[in-house]
């Protein structure tokens, strides 16, 4: 299946997500019929079979989702969602901040800025459950964590502060930023689970 991957382009590190998915698709042998593009409206969203919710400021992105009439279309989106950092906050059922209007697509409670301020931002190698190739080099920037997750959630990684990588149905949520590095294992895993497979040459 061809990939039609949208990146929600309301605010945040959109171009890094586009580049990371393009790299993942290239490594999977996909040609130009698989695409990655910006999504700003419900009409763009309808063209996607996968969507990335980028990092950025979750309060700002949440406000802009509502303003742009994207809240209901996102909730009923049938493809998979790959959510990092602020994106993970938006996917939750519960968030520790009343200004966020979370989408409720993953059964979890999320705390924003769970590690503290920018000076507490860090890089670390994190073991990932069920993933080959060794620990994942993860970049945490004013990152959130999931404090609780429902029984339908598969936890991929946790640190003392909480859960930092998890999956539910076709969705994946990460506290950290795989799009800032060149390790595309998580992107590829996400696409595989959607039925977007590597193309054998």
């Amino acid at each position, binding site marked *: 299946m061809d990939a039609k991957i949208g990146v929600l382009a309301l605010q*945040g590190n959109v171009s890094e997500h586009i580049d990371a998915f393009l790299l993942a698709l290239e490594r999977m042998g996909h040609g130009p019929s698989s695409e990655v593009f910006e999504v700003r409206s419900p009409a763009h969203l309808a063209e996607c079979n996968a969507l990335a919710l980028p*990092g*950025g*400021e979750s*309060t*700002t992105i949440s406000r802009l989702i509502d303003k742009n009439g994207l809240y209901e279309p996102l909730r009923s989106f049938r493809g998979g969602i790959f959510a990092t950092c602020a994106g993970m906050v938006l996917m939750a059922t519960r968030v520790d901040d009343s*200004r966020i209007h979370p989408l409720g697509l993953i059964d979890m409670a999320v705390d924003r800025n769970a590690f503290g*301020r*920018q000076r507490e931002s860090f890089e670390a190698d994190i073991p990932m459950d069920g993933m080959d190739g060794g620990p994942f080099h993860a970049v945490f920037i*004013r990152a959130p964590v999931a404090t609780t997750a429902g029984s339908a959630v598969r936890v991929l990684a946790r640190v003392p502060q909480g859960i930092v990588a998890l999956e539910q149905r076709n969705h994946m949520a990460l506290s950290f930023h795989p799009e800032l590095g060149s390790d595309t294992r998580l992107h590829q895993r996400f696409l595989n689970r959607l039925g977007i497979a590597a193309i054998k040459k």
Partner: protein
Amino acid sequence: MKLEELRFGTELLKRGFASMQKGGVIMDVVNAEQAKIAEDAGAVAVMSLERVPSDIRKMGGVARMADPEKVLEIIDAVSIPVMGKVRIGHFVEAQVLEVLGVDMIDESEVLTPADEQYHIDKKQFKVPFVCGARDLGEALRRINEGAAMIRTKGEAGTGNVVEAVRHMRNIMGEIRMLRGLDKQEMTDYAREIEAPAELVFECAERGRLPVVNFSAGGIATPSDAALMMQLGADGVFVGSGIFKSTNPELMAKAIVEAVNHFDDANVIAKVSKGLGDAMPGLDVHKLKDDEVLQTRGR
């Protein structure tokens, strides 16, 4: 995850933090109340300072880092990142803001310079820095010193966007010009603009600065903000433009929307209606030499 294996304050974390601000509006605030208004309007971060630039112009004297009590009050009031300004070259003010927990430091020409020869050695810090620039050479010198983000300087506190436009056109135009040069010519150009050749090559290859590039200095209306975005800014800083307008709440929301829809004139028209008066403006050509802020630092 072993604690000793965590790495803090790396270049990637600094530039990564800056890239999360893209497509956003960063607003100058002088107290907790303004910070909350900015956050509620959808600002991605606030810049804490003692006085907004137009008041610095009026009051004269030496402009310094804000009172730590003020900075902490603003940090406590909001959950979005808080930035703070220090004087050019004043690395102790920067040490203080880092200790207070500020998320990014602006080494800013809006304050009175502490060193007319050297900027801060920003690589010594764990916290990321943003610095002003008027052209490609200045931007690349700051990046070489460790700046994780650039903002074009414009002319702060004037409410006049003309200098912001000039500086953005300088930087974007110089990068476009690099595409026509071969490596030797680029090396020569790097020498001419007093910038490291490696950074010049990187700009040519990527067609942009190696770090996020915001616009600042004179943005007073939603159209001004959208203009800077269409000229290639990754986001905008609004200083006096919000809290010196007659209705700061409305103006702040309108500028956030204009940046989000910078290429949609229908939205900009809609959000520009009934905003009240923008801040009063100044003709930059009538400023005396010692009133021009952009020439501080080079």
